[in-house]
């Protein structure tokens, strides 16, 4: 038996009144939960992600810092420090007399993983980190105290295949790389380089480079990785040694 079908117009789709009511109800409930989550449970979740390139981030004032961001290369931080220490806040953070970020002993530490490269490290949960979209260095920068994150790069990975000039460092001791690293950034020279191995077995070089004033305000730590083309670079920047030292000891490579 062959059936010639009826037209589409003669058939009705199921009534959608109830469906619409249910859908609106569910949506309102979920949106209410979203707003509740936003207002009550926001702290300590996620990472600040800024758009790449020169673009608007909001007005600049003391409470809502609005740095102009470009995707940066790992640079030696330039930090303007305050000299007024603060008392610990309820999440265990305080500012040292040297204007550095510090935490109390009972602060909560969390693990952070690279987005592109398989590195990880621990940081105080109250320390806000920023990533840069499509960033070839897989950088985390520090967003703290209104200072521009692109000038507060904490950690990044340099691919020595990136340029011909860097390829010479692939098959040699990474100490050579460290000894020449400062030349890219207008620094004056090397203060000291100390070799060490952290508790995850990564071989590191802790360097102090001389700035144009002949001072060594920062510690730059470089880690070798199992793959010789990658070097992890970490800069102390605004971090007090009570934060920076445990952080570099927690750095690991691998899934």
């Amino acid at each position: 038996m062959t059936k010639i079908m009826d037209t589409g117009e003669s058939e009705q789709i199921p009534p959608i009144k109830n469906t619409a009511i249910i859908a609106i109800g569910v949506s309102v409930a979920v949106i209410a939960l979203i707003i509740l989550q936003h207002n009550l449970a926001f702290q300590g979740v996620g990472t600040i992600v800024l758009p790449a390139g020169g673009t608007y981030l909001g007005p600049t004032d003391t409470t809502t810092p609005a740095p102009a961001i470009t995707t940066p290369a790992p640079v030696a931080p330039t930090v303007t420090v305050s000299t007024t220490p603060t008392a610990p806040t309820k999440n265990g953070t305080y500012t040292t007399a040297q204007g550095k970020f510090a935490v109390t002993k009972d602060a909560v530490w969390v693990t952070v993983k690279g987005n592109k490269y398989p590195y990880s490290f621990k940081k105080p949960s109250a320390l806000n980190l920023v990533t840069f979209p499509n960033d070839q260095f897989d950088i985390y920068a520090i967003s703290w105290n209104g200072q521009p994150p692109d000038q507060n790069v904490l950690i990044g990975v340099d691919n020595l295949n990136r340029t011909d000039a860097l390829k010479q460092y692939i098959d040699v001791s990474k100490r050579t790389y460290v000894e020449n690293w400062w030349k890219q950034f207008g620094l004056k020279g090397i203060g000291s380089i100390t070799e060490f191995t952290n508790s995850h077995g990564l071989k590191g070089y802790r360097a102090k480079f001389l700035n144009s004033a002949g001072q060594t305000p920062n510690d730059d730590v470089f880690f070798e990785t199992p793959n010789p083309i990658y070097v992890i670079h970490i800069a102390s920047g605004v971090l007090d040694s009570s934060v920076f030292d445990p952080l570099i000891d927690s750095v690991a490579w691998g899934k």
Partner: protein
Amino acid sequence: MKKVLTFVTNPTNFQFLLGVALLLRLVLIPNPGFEADVAFWKSWGLAVRDFGIVKGLPLTNFNYPSPFAYVLALMADVYSFFANPHNYNEYWNNANVLFLAICKTPSILADFGIFAVILWIGKNAKRIGFPQLPMPFYTTLAFIYLLSPLAMLDGALWGQVDSLGVVIFLIANCLVLRKKPFLAGIVYMIAMMTKLQNMIYGPVFFLFIWQYLGFEGFMQAVGGAALTFFSLNIEFVLNRDMSRVAGDLTGNYDYFPWMSLNAYNVWWIVSGAHGMQMSDKNMAIGIVNAKTVGLYMFASTYLLSVLTMLKGKFLPSNNRAIQQFNNEGTLNSPIVSRELLFRYLSGLIIAASGFFLFQTESHDRYAFPVIVFLLLWGPLWITRNKKEIIEREITPLFTSFIVGYILITLLYFYNLHNAFIQNYPHNGISFLTGLNIPTLTILASLAQIGVFGYFLYILRRYITTPIFASCVGICILLIIAKDMPLITKKPVYITKLTPISATAGYGSRQVDMPVMASFGFSKWGFLSTQYAFYHHGIGTHAPAREVYDINRNFKTLTTDVGIDTNGGPQGSVEFDVYGDGKQLYSSGLVTRYQFPRHANINVTGVKTLELIVTDGGNGNVDDHADWLNTQLIP
């Protein structure tokens, strides 16, 4: 299949499936999605909210059609109703669920909009010329879209607005089928200003209107579109700043100069699955670079889509479809109308696929509209040549179409998901991460090209061998014409080649003009060194570096070099030429008042050519450097 058809039309099941589709999307909202896109939208929307569109956009690196900024500003406005967008640590947090919910809502609603449009088409099939299949067929198609992992990935997970652009474009098409061309033109322009890729469909869309509604309908649609364009950009019109609008429409050209932006297409294969690491300014065929070859291939494919629509007959003026428009009557020529629709949708799919598969710099998401167009094309395909629609014959064809369609969406899902996790591995589906293997991605590219080839084969009634051969032939002829200097061993001005990269220490690289021309047309002029004038060359400024892929096609580089006459007295530079990293030429120190120097440089076997200008050791003040009459000889 009959069970499926019965299942979806049961009211309870209908509501259940709709609820599932909604819930799945709501669950995906908190995922940070494609964080770069979301971050840009936060920035652009906030700027427009704070300063208005005219003053706000210049504060940003906005590169969408200008009116889309109103949508983004609305997102920021809605956000500010619940929270403070100037709270830096909250607003810019990638786990800002409130903003994620707001920015993903348009695409989620658009998914349901597409669902509704398909149902509307089914319900009005007789009136608008679609096959009069029973409603369960159209309901099934609508649910297949709504429940597709692909649709959820693109909108609710990724956070993109492809579905919004598609649904607005579909509404424009529905208005054409309802014979409201002026409104259709308006809505089409809204679609284009929402998602610029809709511009690609413009020629076939307006051609269809002409075919379907006659010249008068065509003119009404063009009028609606033009009016809407200026209306949507009225603030820029009143501020006499239309250059901003033009810039937003053209700014994306060459924005990402790579072979393939994770689109599994021809160039993904050519690049060996490294589409985003290989410049599309590399030579592909002779001295024609990949971008140009891609443009020729796309243009030829587009011609194919137009010919598919025109093959057979361009409806004569006494055709019923046109009479029907004139008389506002009921369509009484469904076969003719169905034929037109079939060819139009086929043309749309060919054009959209060509854009995705053959152009370089193609984004992974560019094939998304094809997935929707295919769903509308399906009913026309399974009922082609049939005056009477007979269920017993149609159901197996429908089943075949659905199975094929699902396989295609899964293939494309693989492409899109890989692109997503390539950028944000933690935001994707973790157990699929292991499938992101270069060899598999190349196989997927081949499969997607193969599907397109099969689609053309299905259309062999329209795309006859002569038509196909003509389009391919035109593409080949264009490439040969571009390669003629190489074939005839004639010198090629280096300005005819596009550098892989070019930097200048001041201003920007200028073709056939000095570097000062980069500061406006009042500075335009001829290249000259100590008043020796040249028609051809490159005006730049130390320190400058230009890199070309010449792919071992040339033997000699001839050039004059010197400091441009409009450079100041302190100008002193050195011109260097490198081939594959090895220095081939150095001019020595060249100063402002010297006459041009000439060089013949052997570049035999050189693949990568670098033209470098250094500052001569005294800083780059007044270093206006000219490469003059620079030619490559095969």
